[in-house]
């Protein structure tokens, strides 16, 4: 499923809403999660999962093709941990 299919599904479930409102809702949800992570905040959606960010220190890496040592800058990565309900649904 891709973003546009998600919008179509939600529009089918909500025939009383304009499609552009649904689009706005979908964009709002993912923008809010992105904004929170950008601030360094955690996003917890019980049952679904939690998004958070972790800092990674700078390190010496290696180009696997040439074997040359390269410097890898410190960075922030996002992490998603699936909630219990979602994990169970995926496993059933």
């Amino acid at each position, binding site marked *: 499923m*891709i973003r546009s299919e998600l919008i179509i*599904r939600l529009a089918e479930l909500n025939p009383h809403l304009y499609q552009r409102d649904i689009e706005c809702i979908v964009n709002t949800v993912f923008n809010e999660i992105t904004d929170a*992570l950008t*601030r360094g905040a*955690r996003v917890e959606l019980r049952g679904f999962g939690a998004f958070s960010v972790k800092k990674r220190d700078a390190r010496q890496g290696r180009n696997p093709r040439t074997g040359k040592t390269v410097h890898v800058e410190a960075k922030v990565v*996002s992490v998603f941990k699936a909630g219990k309900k979602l994990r169970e649904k995926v496993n059933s």
Partner: protein
Amino acid sequence: MEQKTVTRADISEVIYKEVGLSRNESSDLLEMLLDEITVSLAKKETVKISSFGTFSVREKNLRMGRNPKTGEEVPILPRSVLSFKPSQILKDRINGKVSKG
């Protein structure tokens, strides 16, 4: 960098303000969105949200694990795990590389 955790209530509040639905309907829509993603993933479908990231289901094989307390060997059964891969845009944004887009 300690920040208040964002929850469903915060996100539906923004939907309420930006889209002009009632508070109830805003929270219903958020729930439906999460449900649709869950249903897709339960069918082992990949869910790809452009400029955000991709949720996918990976199958794990049976392997032997060990109970760290007793040292006893126990089989870890084949199972499905969920993985989330952030898009390049999300990665850049959380690293402060691009402005809000």
